[in-house]
């Protein structure tokens, strides 16, 4: 039976709650939001194109060495309308994805093991960080000796380039689980697997995702280096096509492939950022 005071108290509580919750702000329609994000990027692209065109106009290099944007984009249009080109993209992306996933699997296992066992950390903790700073192109001579000119040689370098970042992301995520959360875990009686399942792994997710993002960047770079250096017969990847264009002294085509690689890099980065932002928003880690 709710008494008068109980009702009044309940009204106080919900009144305070309503006052403390921030009123919803209108962020505008999707269209205006996209436009707000897009126009600075378009402007930046326009400035780069203009600068490029000015350099071409200045006559610093002959047109066949440094072609202007118009020539390049015409070539680019021709290139991307061939099915052949898309086979190359598919091959390159398949390699990238396979290598990356392999690196994630290995990096996760190594990272989890290192953060779990202190002696292992003492033994290889700093080695992992060292590997991360190692330029991946340095691995190719060894990779070629070990695996000859093959897909395996490329995979080896891609994985060794990316796995340390993934491992490090997981390790620092686990290391920096806030103390208060660990105390809550203790109070709730979490132990062993339950502690990992319900506390450590979810808590380390943001750091793990930045590790993945960095790992991707490393694997993509290693792969591009690999495709230029390790030319597997019959595999017409993007790197191989670029190398062929260079052999033919076709600057325009080389620039086309640079643009293609850049665009792929940007698109993948957008995906990682979307995942990162979604997580931050869910967790309330955004600034606003």
């Amino acid at each position: 039976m709710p008494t008068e005071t109980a009702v009044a108290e309940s009204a106080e509580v919900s009144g305070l709650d309503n006052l403390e919750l921030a009123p919803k702000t209108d962020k505008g329609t999707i269209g205006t939001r996209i436009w707000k994000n897009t126009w600075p990027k378009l402007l930046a692209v326009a400035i780069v194109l203009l600068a490029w065109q000015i350099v071409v106009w200045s006559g610093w290099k002959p047109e066949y060495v440094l072609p202007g944007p118009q020539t390049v984009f015409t070539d680019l249009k021709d290139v991307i309308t061939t099915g052949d080109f898309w086979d190359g993209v598919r091959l390159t992306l398949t390699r990238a994805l396979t290598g990356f996933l392999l690196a994630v699997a290995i990096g996760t296992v190594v990272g989890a093991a290192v953060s779990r066992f202190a002696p292992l950390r003492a033994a290889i903790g700093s080695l992992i960080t060292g590997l991360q700073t190692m330029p991946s192109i340095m691995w190719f001579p060894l990779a070629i000796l070990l695996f000859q000119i093959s897909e395996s040689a490329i995979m080896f370098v891609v994985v060794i380039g990316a796995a340390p970042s993934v491992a490090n992301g997981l390790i620092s995520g686990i290391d920096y689980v806030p103390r208060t959360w660990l105390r809550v875990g203790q109070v709730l009686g979490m132990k062993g697997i339950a502690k990992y399942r319900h506390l450590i792994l979810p808590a380390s997710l943001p750091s793990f995702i930045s590790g993945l993002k960095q790992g991707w960047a490393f694997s993509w770079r290693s792969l591009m280096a690999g495709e230029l250096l390790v030319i597997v017969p019959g595999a017409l990847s993007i790197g191989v096509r670029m190398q062929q264009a260079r052999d033919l002294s076709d600057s325009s085509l080389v620039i086309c492939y640079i643009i293609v690689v850049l665009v792929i890099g940007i698109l993948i980065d957008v995906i990682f950022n979307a995942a990162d932002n979604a997580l931050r928003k869910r967790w309330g880690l955004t600034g606003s």
Partner: protein
Amino acid sequence: MSLLEHTEVRTDAVVRLENVSKQYGSGAHALLALDRVSLTVRQGEFVCLLGASGCGKSTLLSLVAGLDQISGGTLDIGGRKVSLMFQEAALFPWLSVAGNVELPLRLQGIGKAERKKRAAELLEIVRLRGFGDKRPHELSGGMRQRVALARALAQDADILLMDEPFGALDAMTRDILHDELERIWREQDLTVLFVTHNVREAVRLGDRVVLLSSRPGRVIEDFPVTQGRPRRIDSPEVAGQAAEITDRLRAEVARHAN
């Protein structure tokens, strides 16, 4: 349940500390945090632990919660279940509000349907019905503390330990949460050990206010609060007793002057 039932003295001790000491480190660098503390909390009692900095209030709660080992004396909670709340709500951001409340139930292996039902009941108790699907960061500080309380209640503990749970909240919110905590304590028949450095808060809430000395922590005095409930933090009676305890506390702080 009438208020009278609660003011009755019950004899059954739930928490019993006898000459409990806690020392950190050893040798010359040893720090004695608690020195022969004796304290008994009875079933259904609301006891406030009060002291200046360095009195080992939080240490005491950690010991009772079993998060830390005592160095000497005896500590007996009769195998009862204990839950602990902190100054920070420390909710997990990857779970919804309901998910946080369900977590203790999940760890106990309770089925999904039952968990949902129980979490809804608990959110109702802390007056957060309809907020289950929100994320912790979407709530205000006071609301988050209520979710933390619901999570603590989900542990179905006999003893609720609270470590300055309202310390980070503004006065208005704290005032209202005092009413809420008092109501829930009464309705759920909880035993509460509440740590604070706010004298008025201690007098507002406690059946007893236990004053601890600093470095090392010792029980100096045990003040029974005789005011009937419900109390108001700004009532003259509460203020009067708070002034008396504050004087005692100040004397203790002055003892540490050079």
